[in-house]
């Protein structure tokens, strides 16, 4: 083998290392921990990959990313929804620099818990956080501005939006990894597929096609409930489907992949896996499912007032049925007059 060829081969060997990036936007940081949760397997990842950008763990600046050629990053794992202009800009920048963009975790995939703020708006949030909070000391009622002149020059801050959006509202996303956070097995499946170049068709959600119920350990039978209960209100915990015990469990409307971990801990599913395949709206699906089993015994003789009382037991439909996915719902923000 000639020297040149050898060098080429060495180069090719080098190039084979995957170039990865991680970013967090409107999220809690749990997804970052999830990456580390793959434990010693992270070493396998490092053996096959270089990390080019990971603000939570490594010191990189945005300008390092700006200086990269387009498509330098093989795969970017992006967690968090889009709440402000900085997050949107970085999402667009990373999209340009990345061959494959993965929405990582419920917030990037669906909007996440921060997305519940779509029942309010920027003004109301600022009023509570900076003006009307009893523990505040802000006599001048100062609120953050996108730019402020001081004698040293102009200071700027990102713009806070009225609504939270999910990642693919602002950029094109190639794959979706649901979960709050995605479970280690799912992350490894995704990384494995990427390393081997065996990626599913663009736009795929990486995860099974079945619901959480399919993975849940509890015995299931015909469902009919008289009363809705919180888990601590159960007189006696029975080893059977939580819905049948009157606890709202999002399992039937939620995509599995988590191995029903919450159920393993005797807690109901709250829906972080997002809608099941082909369901247009996770919350509406659960509204349908729950309303179909609530108070059906003797339903022929129930007055409308009695039915209303049953329904009144669901105190917060948005928080219950759209805990992780309000920005992805058909009606995805409150109407502001």
């Amino acid at each position, binding site marked *: 083998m000639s020297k040149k060829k050898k060098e080429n081969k060495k180069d090719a060997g080098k190039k084979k290392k995957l170039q990865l990036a991680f970013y967090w936007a409107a999220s809690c940081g749990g997804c970052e921990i999830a990456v580390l949760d793959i434990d010693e397997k992270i070493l396998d990842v490092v053996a096959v990959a270089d990390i080019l950008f990971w603000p939570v763990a490594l010191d990189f600046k945005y300008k390092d990313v700006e200086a990269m050629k387009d498509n330098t990053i093989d795969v970017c794992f992006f967690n968090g929804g889009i709440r402000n202009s900085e997050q949107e800009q970085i999402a667009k920048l990373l999209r340009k620099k990345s061959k494959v963009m993965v929405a990582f975790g419920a917030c990037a995939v669906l909007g996440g818990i921060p997305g519940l703020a779509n029942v309010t708006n920027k003004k109301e949030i600022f009023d509570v956080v900076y003006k009307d909070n009893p523990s505040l000391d802000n006599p001048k009622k100062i609120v953050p501005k996108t730019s402020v002149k001081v004698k040293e020059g102009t200071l700027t801050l990102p713009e806070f939006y009225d609504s939270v959006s999910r990642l693919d509202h602002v950029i094109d996303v190639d794959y979706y990894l649901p979960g709050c956070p995605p479970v280690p097995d799912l992350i490894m499946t995704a990384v494995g597929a990427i390393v081997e170049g065996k990626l599913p068709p663009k736009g795929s959600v990486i995860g099974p096609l079945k619901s959480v119920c399919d993975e849940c350990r509890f015995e299931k039978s015909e469902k009919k409930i008289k009363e809705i209960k919180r888990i601590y209100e159960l007189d006696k915990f029975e080893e059977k489907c939580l819905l049948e015990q009157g606890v709202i469990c999002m399992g039937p409307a939620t995509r599995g992949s988590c191995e029903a971990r919450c159920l393993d801990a005797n807690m109901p599913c709250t829906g972080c896996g997002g809608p099941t395949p082909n369901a247009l709206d996770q919350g509406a699906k659960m509204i349908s499912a729950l309303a179909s089993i609530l108070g059906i015994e003797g339903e022929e003789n129930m007055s409308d007032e009695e039915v209303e009382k049953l*329904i009144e037991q669901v105190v917060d439909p948005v928080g219950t049925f759209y805990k992780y996915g309000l920005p992805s719902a058909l009606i995805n923000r*409150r109407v502001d007059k």
Partner: protein
Amino acid sequence: MKDFEPNIIGFLCNWCSYAGADLAGTSRMKYPPNIKSIRVMCSGRVDPIFILEALKKGADGVLVAGCHPGDCHYQSGNYKTNRRIKLLKKFLEEMAVNPNRVRFEYVSASEGAKFATIVTEFVDELKKMGPNPLKDVKV
């Protein structure tokens, strides 16, 4: 808002309400032409998603009509729909969408006149509410 003509999507069950609407037509009863009727086999076929999608796509009102209690061809579809719509309305309220934009009614095959009255009333009510604001909501 004088010229506002509301756009109503009607989901009518095959066995009662659609026949009721038909009767209104064949008996030449007058009611406003604002409703676009879709025949479904049972009011229980109406997934809450259909209603949300109709509203999202700009319908000003959605009417779901089914058989009277005890008359559902499939025994209990109408009971389920009644509950689903009540729960859905609670969600709509939280999103500041007037829940009265969605209506569930019992209309039998012989109640052509009732159907005509419901549509007339609903159109009036929606005219007062004005156009569906969801059309302009963007995230």
